[in-house]
């Protein structure tokens, strides 16, 4: 992928995240802080489909943005073909892992299995 595409994604995910995180936080602020962390209310949130979807999107956006950010930093830290390959694939792997792990939470909690 051209670096410009990667970076456009980086900026795009950031912008998307701004909007969505704002909603996420607003939601949280409808309750007081301690209450919002109560197990039931959290579960209730997850079971509310649009909200779960929102969380999923945030998860994806921020993972992409954050791990690409990390890739950028690591790329600038040291150079070399193998190192750079390792960084790129490492970051993609970590990104995927976080997305999968996070999705599992949303999925399971959202399905009301718990």
């Amino acid at each position: 992928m051209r670096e410009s595409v990667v970076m456009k994604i980086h900026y795009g995910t950031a912008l998307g995240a701004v909007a969505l995180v704002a909603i996420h936080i607003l939601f949280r602020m409808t309750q007081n802080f301690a209450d919002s962390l109560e197990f039931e209310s959290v579960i209730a949130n997850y079971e509310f489909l649009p909200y779960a979807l929102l969380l999923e999107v945030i998860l994806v956006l921020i993972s992409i943005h954050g791990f690409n950010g990390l890739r950028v930093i690591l790329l600038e830290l040291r150079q070399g073909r193998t190192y750079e390959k390792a960084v790129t694939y490492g970051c993609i792997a970590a990104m995927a892992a976080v997305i999968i792990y996070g999705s599992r939470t949303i999925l399971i909690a959202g399905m009301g299995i718990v």
Partner: protein
Amino acid sequence: MEKQTNREGIKGWLNPTRYGIERFAYWLMRLTGLGLLAYFVAHIIETSTIVDGKDAWDKMLELTQTTEGHIILALVIGMSVFHTVNGIRVMLGQGGIGVGKPGRPDYPYNKPASLNNKHKLCIYASIGLAALAMLYGLQVMFGV
């Protein structure tokens, strides 16, 4: 090797203020980016305990809803506000917006147009807003 190439290396990060506020913002942007990423990963792990039922969730809350936990959370709030606001500035700047217009520079050349007051103001604003958000967060978490 480093001695041969004489690159400043990570040491350059240790001294963020010597080239003015823009360099400081760059430094904070990196730190907050990394901080947020760390928190984000931790947060995913943290929230995943919900899958294991109420007990696990409460146990996690017990671990995290401490004074230290709240201070960290406050920091995260600050970091995300700074990173977001400054991030928007950086994005605009990197798109060539608000970086000034090319023109004849006059001696002394100590006011490059790209390091202009709009950007400086934005940086101060990001720091200010981050501080306010942190105070607000602390107040919510510790306040009555």
